[in-house]
């Protein structure tokens, strides 16, 4: 059959369907169309009436279980699916991004001059406690943190430092129940603060005031108006964190480094030397009491003088070691920096500028989280889309197969 014949027959069909005259050559097609129309199944009036009613009511849900429900497949509300998808993507993003974010923060904490965004610094960490408690003599620990652009904390949060989070050494644990001696740890910290040149003096005064308020003292200080200064401070070890936190609010923290060195061995050595010398002195005194000759007495007295000197030296050493453990050394460098955050005095005032910086930082973090979520969610969404397309195509193929199987 030629293509033109096919075309003409199709045209004749369309004419017959439209009620137009049909070429006599294709009269049988006209009859066929009429016969097919006569064979058209018509719905029963009862059915159409019932369907009309259901349509007029907007197809109310029937209470009886549908085939799908009978087959055990739960029917999720359509509105819930997108929400579930978004929630799953966000959860996945958090799971994926969480460790990397934490790792990133840890990394930034070890680089001086970085841009750490963390805002908590009070108190010590359990890791540092463990390090202190199980460390043997001579082992030191150092922690440092980068600078921060964070704004000073609100006045109410007296415990929080402006923008640095680092594992801080904690005071040595108390003597354990089995009577082991508490460890002696010497702590030190270095802090670099930035302030506007016009506020160097104010910042320097704030540093001295904080030192005084935490019960410490200034070993040395050098301040130059509008250019900065250096401070060597000694503060009670148990108030070191408080001091650092409050000093951190004096200006913008550029860097903060803390170190801890176990000096238990040194303390024990000094204590043992003192004990030994005292024991020897008691022994010499007993020998002196029993001496029978003048020569014996003079010899023992000479030895007693030497031992007394050793006792005095051992006491000095012990006191020095105890002082090293009781007071921490804090070195503060105050530098002038144009455009730096205004040194907020010790009162921790929270200015509109601080609020603006906080808001900017929050937006940065939010944008970062969204970016990570997008990076994680995009492949997931793509996979979901592919799965959806594959599912639809599979369902359609099965339908078509059902038609072939009839």
């Amino acid at each position, binding site marked *: *059959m030629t293509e033109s014949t*096919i075309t003409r*027959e*199709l045209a004749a*069909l369309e004419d017959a*369907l439209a009620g137009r005259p049909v070429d006599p050559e294709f009269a*049988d*097609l006209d009859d*066929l*169309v009429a*016969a*097919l*129309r*006569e*064979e*058209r*199944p*018509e*719905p*029963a009036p009862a*059915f*159409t*009436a*019932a*369907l*009309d*009613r*259901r*349509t*007029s*009511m*907007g*197809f109310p849900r029937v209470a009886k279980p549908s*085939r799908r429900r009978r087959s055990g497949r739960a029917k999720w509300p359509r509105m819930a699916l997108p929400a579930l998808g978004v929630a799953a993507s966000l959860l996945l993003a958090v799971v994926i991004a969480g460790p990397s974010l934490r790792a990133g923060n840890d990394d930034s904490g070890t680089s001086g001059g970085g841009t750490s965004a963390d805002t908590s610094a009070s108190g010590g960490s359990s890791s540092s406690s463990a390090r202190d408690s199980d460390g043997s003599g001579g082992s030191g620990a150092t922690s440092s943190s980068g600078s921060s652009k964070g704004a000073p904390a609100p006045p109410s949060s007296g415990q929080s430092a402006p923008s640095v989070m680092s594992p801080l050494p904690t005071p040595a644990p108390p003597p354990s129940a089995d009577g082991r001696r508490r460890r002696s740890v010497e702590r030190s910290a270095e802090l670099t603060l930035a302030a506007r040149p016009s506020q160097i003096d104010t910042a320097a005064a704030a540093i001295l005031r904080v030192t005084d308020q935490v019960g410490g003292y200034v070993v040395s200080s050098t301040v130059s108006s509008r250019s900065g200064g250096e401070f060597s401070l000694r503060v009670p070890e148990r108030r070191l964190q408080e001091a650092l936190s409050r000093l951190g609010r004096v200006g913008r923290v550029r860097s903060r480094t803390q170190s801890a060195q176990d000096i238990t061995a040194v303390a024990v050595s000094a204590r043992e030397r003192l004990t030994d010398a005292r024991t020897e002195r008691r022994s010499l005194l007993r020998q002196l009491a029993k001496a029978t000759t003048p020569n014996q007495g003079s010899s023992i007295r000479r030895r007693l003088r030497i031992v007394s000197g050793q006792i005095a030296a051992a006491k000095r050493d012990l006191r020095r070691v105890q002082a090293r453990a009781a007071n921490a050394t804090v070195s503060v460098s105050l530098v002038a920096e144009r455009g730096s955050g205004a040194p907020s005095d010790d009162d921790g005032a929270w200015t509109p500028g601080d609020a603006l910086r906080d808001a900017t930082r929050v937006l940065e973090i939010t944008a970062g989280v969204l970016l990570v979520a997008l990076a994680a969610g995009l492949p997931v969404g793509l996979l979901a889309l592919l799965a959806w397309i594959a599912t639809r195509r599979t369902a*359609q193929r*099965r*339908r*078509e*197969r*059902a*038609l*072939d*199987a*009839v």
Partner: protein
Amino acid sequence: MSVTDGPQRRSTHVTTTATVPLTTTQRAPALDFEALYRGSRDDVFAYVATLLRDRSAAEDVTAAAFERAYRKRDGYRPSRGSRRAWLFGIARNAALDELRRRNRSAAMTADPEDLDTALPDDEAEKAVRRAALRTALAGLAPREREIVALKFHAGLDNAELAAVLGVSPSNAGTLLHRAVTALRKAIDD
């Protein structure tokens, strides 16, 4: 013989008008579902009944198809085809789902006409031709029968036919010609 003596003939190109007022949705619908329903109800039934050859199942599938269409009415996109093509696509999926579920072919439940009844010659001839047509339709391959149903019972044009079947319009014409040829051959046999 008067024109009322013979068996009652069905009207063609007549669509029953529902007298029950239809509620409209609260918000302006993207699709005039009421008009679509009124204009397509009997066509959808005719198509599904021809495909399934089971009036009872056709009623269920027709109702299910309209319900699906009602719930998906906001998803209709004019750029993808006419409203009727969209509706018949839904009806086709529902019918195929039914076929899949049954996995069998069902004969139409309508009783065959009694050819032994005494009829005038011309009416008897028509009855014979009608029976031959039914037999030929039943003997068609399901896909060919589906095309016949969509074209002659549901009244779709070739573009709508192509959209429902997922083929090009020219391919739809070719399929239609094949189906008609097969039907003519079956009737002749």
